[in-house]
């Protein structure tokens, strides 16, 4: 009887404990999901924030500010070493001998561009100009010439100049005579170079030539300026006297050539250094030119320390490994993109304007004329267009493909008149002076592909191991460049899928001992091998056939390697025999599926309306196709009468040109905020939230933001993000610029000031070294951590479509893949340090002239394979955290309002989760607030201050877009939800970055411990009770039987 009682007791206990175990186990999981709320209710803390330096998610790599500065300086010097390009080197002009006296000629020799500090140049106290760099390296300079240039011609002094933005007078470096640093907006450009005939007038002694010793080397430096809002106008050059010459401002002027001539007259050898971010015309001094010099080097747009590296190259202390990021031409007019440059008005552009009838702006007369680069007019600015009829054939892709077809495919009529500037018919050798990727090495070397692997899966990579053999007698650094030729098939010809005969993929550098060999491994995502077929497959395709890979010193050497592999020789018209071998990878069958999706997003046409033909409804534009160079070479569409009113899509076209991509809807009320107690802080944001934007926390967080703040914060940003009152987020300040953070670090201990914007975009481009770009990214990121600044517009990745864009000095190359790989390196480095480095200006900022409104028309293949590809590496492959959108239109749509470019491609296909900002919002009639929200912009750069709401204007209307009211917005749930989604990306990115540079650690609360104890105790007791129950039950039955 007793034991039967025990049986019941144990069975009951077993049931009770089993239940408690279930409740404790599942309850622990559930409480974990509501940890923040439970903490709030019980007053416990599940996370502790560890904010000492060691626990930071992003740590500085340098212990002291001196080490930080030294690392920055080291990168800058290496940019000079690796980015200086030896374009021409005859008669043993280079390397320089320290025994020879050097005579420096030209204004830029004593004041290299840029000569003032600011966004582009740091201006540290120990900055090195060319004179200092050469003298520090032990070079003896001719003092007579130096003195009359410095003291007579230049006469450096300071002037008080009004600040461009604030108007405040500030002390600025000035010279009596200096080259024009800003060419203006399609204005006449005066090439200021004091001609030799005026030397004595400007202070040179009459016998200055006698001061030059026999055996001297003349170094002549020529510069061209650039800048925001600046665009060179072809044919606009003025000479030193201010007279129009009709010459290209990027060509050497007669005054400049007089300097070359006197250098040739007085020195044994003459070297010209090109100090510009805009590709200059050097025909006069190149081989066969009337003023041919011994050597030409490209030194880009320098910064504080790069010239120390350049001097090392000139002296041969390091091997020359720089390569040209652009094609140098005998005449820039040979570039097919130049045919359609600048833009023109539609014949009936006025029909877009409205006189008081725009419901958003009742009573206002809104025109449709151009505005200046900085806004200021009441205009939709939709009257002006350019047609990018050259398609993908920008830079070397055009010149090398046409050269290839001239030999390989005579039926394509490459040898024909259109595009020829140096003769009746087109001839590569006459048109191209120095090809893309060209750069002479001091040390003789060969390069070949040792092994090649192509993983043609969606996320696969091409891996090429390139073997470099150093045939020289000194150890040195060498550059390996990987090129490919994709098959150009009948399918491509039928469907106008354009293919370059040669495409640069990536590059790398390696140090090789004298006489030795070393390998460089180059990897690049295979997706970049695919071409976009916008007509048939409407996605990316890989054609069947042979893909030819080669390692070559430039695009032209590569295409010659391909021609030789295909059986051609000099006898067939090649201008040189092949120097390298070709490795073949074959794709057996046509593939239109592998690259038809990315990041779970199906890839198909999203920019049909970027094509002018879409709007005109007829074949107004013929885009360049290699299958008929003669028949499809671009005409100047600026001279074609294009009437909006004749379009079958007239109304939609006008609406788009009035910037009404999206109109605020009604009848769909938005949900107001729900405060769930979540906050943007370390207590709420842990590793799992940082790892996944899909974590429910982010949606819940942004649904705590009021409608007023959600929309207001997106449409009013720029200088700073906004504090969103409910969620208590930090505000984040934006910083310039492309050379690095412009802010200074003031070291209180030493009293010294350090500036870290010491980088050169031009020289990182001509370094052709993605690894160096990555190392700069890390240094740039470190400098942000030292400066406590985390959000930076810190590089430019727009394609250099023509040489005339005033922003080219901020960009990398004419070629998207070089830009892509350099951008990948810079953004990867910054991301690893938690710095949001946003490249400028995605979406075809191909000219500064009328940038705030010009329509750039193009095919979708060009749309995807040119400018956007330049950004893809940094934003997608390197997981970058920010980007700035261009000013201009893509087709008729403001790039900042282009919903498919941003939402489908950038967010969808690229999986980009970072900030997306507009450029300067300077025209409310052009930038449409609701359309930008719907396009996915996370912050409109209108330079608003913190705490922006819709209803801060008069009578509760928005202070900029007066037709927007809180009540109106409240009735459009789609708009409000999109604004919240955009803020989700912004807040998520802040959390990913060094803005939240703390680590949180989970600790067990008393209720965690209670649940854990309950779980263990109940499990043990359940097992013990069950065993005891079984034992007693069996004993009872035995007794009953007995």
């Amino acid at each position, binding site marked *: 009887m007793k034991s*039967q009682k025990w049986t*019941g*007791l144990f*069975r*009951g206990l*077993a*049931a*009770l404990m*089993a*239940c408690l*175990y*279930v*409740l404790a186990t*599942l*309850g622990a999981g*559930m409480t974990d*999901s*509501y940890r923040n709320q439970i903490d709030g209710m019980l007053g416990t803390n599940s996370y502790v924030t560890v904010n000492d330096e060691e626990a930071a998610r992003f740590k500085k790599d340098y212990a002291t500010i001196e080490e930080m500065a030294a690392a920055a300086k080291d990168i800058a010097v290496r940019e000079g070493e690796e980015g200086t390009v030896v374009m021409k080197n005859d008669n043993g002009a280079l390397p320089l001998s320290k025994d020879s006296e050097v005579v420096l000629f030209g204004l830029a020799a004593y004041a290299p561009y840029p000569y003032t500090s600011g966004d582009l140049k740091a201006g540290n106290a120990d900055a090195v100009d060319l004179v200092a760099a050469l003298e520090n390296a032990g070079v003896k300079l001719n003092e007579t010439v130096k003195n009359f240039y410095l003291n007579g011609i230049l006469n450096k002094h300071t002037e008080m100049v009004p600040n461009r933005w604030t108007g405040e007078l500030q002390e600025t470096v000035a010279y009596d005579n200096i080259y024009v640093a800003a060419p203006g907006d399609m204005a006449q450009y005066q090439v200021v170079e004091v001609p030799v005939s005026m030397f004595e007038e400007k202070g040179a002694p009459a016998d200055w030539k006698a001061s030059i010793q026999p055996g001297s080397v003349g170094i002549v430096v020529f510069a061209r300026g650039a800048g925001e809002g600046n665009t060179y106008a072809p044919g606009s050059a003025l000479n030193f006297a201010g007279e129009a010459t009709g010459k290209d401002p990027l060509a050497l002027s007669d005054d400049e050539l007089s300097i070359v001539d006197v250098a040739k007259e007085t020195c044994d050898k003459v070297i010209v250094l090109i100090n510009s971010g805009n590709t200059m015309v050097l025909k006069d001094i190149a081989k066969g030119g009337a003023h041919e010099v011994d050597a030409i080097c490209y030194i880009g747009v320098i910064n504080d320390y790069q010239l120390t590296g350049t001097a090392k190259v000139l002296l041969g202390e390091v091997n020359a490994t720089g390569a040209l990021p652009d094609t140098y031409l005998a005449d820039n007019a040979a570039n097919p993109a130049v045919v359609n440059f600048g833009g023109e008005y539609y014949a009936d552009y006025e029909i877009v304007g409205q006189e008081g009838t725009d419901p958003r702006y009742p009573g206002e007369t809104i025109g449709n004329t151009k505005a200046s680069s900085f806004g200021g007019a009441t205009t939709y600015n939709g009257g002006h267009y350019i047609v990018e009829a050259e398609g993908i054939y920008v830079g070397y892709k055009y010149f090398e493909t046409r050269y290839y077809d001239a030999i390989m495919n005579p039926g394509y009529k490459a040898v024909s008149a259109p595009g020829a500037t140096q003769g009746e018919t087109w001839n590569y050798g006459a048109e191209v002076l120095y090809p893309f990727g060209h750069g002479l090495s001091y040390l003789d070397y060969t390069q070949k592909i040792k092994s090649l692997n192509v993983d043609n899966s969606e996320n696969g990579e091409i891996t090429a191991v390139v073997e470099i053999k150093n045939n020289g007698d000194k150890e040195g650094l060498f550059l390996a460049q990987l090129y490919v030729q994709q098959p150009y098939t009948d399918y491509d010809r039928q469907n106008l899928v354009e293919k370059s005969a040669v495409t640069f993929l990536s590059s790398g550098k390696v140090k090789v001992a004298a006489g030795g060999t070393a390998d460089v491994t180059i990897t690049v995502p295979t997706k970049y091998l695919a071409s976009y077929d916008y007509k048939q497959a409407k996605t990316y395709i890989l054609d069947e056939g042979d893909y030819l890979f080669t390692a070559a010193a430039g695009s032209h050497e590569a295409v010659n390697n391909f021609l030789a592999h295909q059986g051609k020789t000099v006898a067939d018209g090649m201008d040189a025999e092949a120097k390298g071998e070709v490795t073949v990878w074959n794709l057996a069958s046509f593939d239109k599926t592998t690259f038809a999706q990315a990041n779970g997003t199906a890839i198909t046409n999203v920019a049909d309306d970027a094509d002018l033909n879409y709007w005109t409804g007829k074949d107004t534009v013929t885009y360049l196709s290699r299958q008929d160079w003669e028949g499809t070479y671009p005409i100047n569409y600026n001279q074609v009468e294009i009437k909006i009113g004749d379009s079958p899509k007239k109304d939609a076209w006008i609406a788009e040109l009035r910037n009404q991509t999206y109109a605020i809807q009604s009848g769909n009320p938005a*949900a*107001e905020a*729900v*405060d*769930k107690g979540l906050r943007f802080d370390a207590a709420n944001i842990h590793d799992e939230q940082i790892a996944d934007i899909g974590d429910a926390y982010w949606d819940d967080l942004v649904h705590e933001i009021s409608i007023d703040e959600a929309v207001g914060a997106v449409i009013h940003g720029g200088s700073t993000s906004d504090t969103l009152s409910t969620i208590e987020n930090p505000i984040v300040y934006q910083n310039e610029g492309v050379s690095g953070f412009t802010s200074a670090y003031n070291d209180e201990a030493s009293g010294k000031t350090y500036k870290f914007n010491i980088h050169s975009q031009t020289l990182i481009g001509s370094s052709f070294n993605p690894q160096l770009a990555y190392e700069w990214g890390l240094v740039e990121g470190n400098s942000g951590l030292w400066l406590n600044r985390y959000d930076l517009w810190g590089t430019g990745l727009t394609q250099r479509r023509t040489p005339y864009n005033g922003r080219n000095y901020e960009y990398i190359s004419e070629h998207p893949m070089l830009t892509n790989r350099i951008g990948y390196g810079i953004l990867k480095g910054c991301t690893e340090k938690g710095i949001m480095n946003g490249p400028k200006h995605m979406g075809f900022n191909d000219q500064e002239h009328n940038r705030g409104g010009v329509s750039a028309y193009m095919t979708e293949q060009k749309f995807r394979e040119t400018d956007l590809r330049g950004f893809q590496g940094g934003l997608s492959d390197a997981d970058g955290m920010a980007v700035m959108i261009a000013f201009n239109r893509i087709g008729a749509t403001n790039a900042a309002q282009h919903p498919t470019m941003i939402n489908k491609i950038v967010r969808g296909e690229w999986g980009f989760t970072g900030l997306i900002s507009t450029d300067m919002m300077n025209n409310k009639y052009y930038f449409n607030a609701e359309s930008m929200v719907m396009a996915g912009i996370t912050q409109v750069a209108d330079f608003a201050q913190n705490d922006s709401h819709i209803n801060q204007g008069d009578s509760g209307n928005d202070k900029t877009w007066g037709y927007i009211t809180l009540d109106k917005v409240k009735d459009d749930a789609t708009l409000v939800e999109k604004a919240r989604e955009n803020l989700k990306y912004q807040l998520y990115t802040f959390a990913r970055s060094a803005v939240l540079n703390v680590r949180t650690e989970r600790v067990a609360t008393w209720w965690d411990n209670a649940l854990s104890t309950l779980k263990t105790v109940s499990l043990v007791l359940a097992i013990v009770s*069950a065993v005891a*129950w*079984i034992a007693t*039950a*069996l004993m*009872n*039955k035995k007794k009953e039987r007995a």
Partner: protein
Amino acid sequence: MRMKKLSVGACLTCLAAVLAIVALIAYASNIGGEGYYKDAAVNGFPWMVIGGVLCLAVAVGLYLYKDNKGVELVTGILRIGAPALMAVALMNLIAGRVDGLGYIYFSNADVAREVQTAANLGSAQTAIWSMALLGVAILVAVVAAFFRLRKKDA
């Protein structure tokens, strides 16, 4: 006659099964009726409750049918397992309902005005009832496990 030998344990077990069935009915009416939880089924919940009820029913049935060592062990396991299974169901139901209950009862005034409709409040109450009923069923089943299913033979 075994029926006459039904104990407190058997009665409580039957009561637990009935309460669980009522909880299941409340759940069905919750997801079938108008209101916040309409169509908001909780994955596996009905099967777990039915499983628990079946365990209890089989335990009682087996004991009425036969009383030996094997039956004692099997019914014991069923009586221990049934409340545990129903506890799993209860926790799943709570996990599936807690967000909504918070939204309905603890939103700020603006939202509460919109969300606290009669249908939503009714739906929330039914959800609470189904949880409460299942909780009581578990409790009763646990208590029942302390008692024999059959009165001791005189």
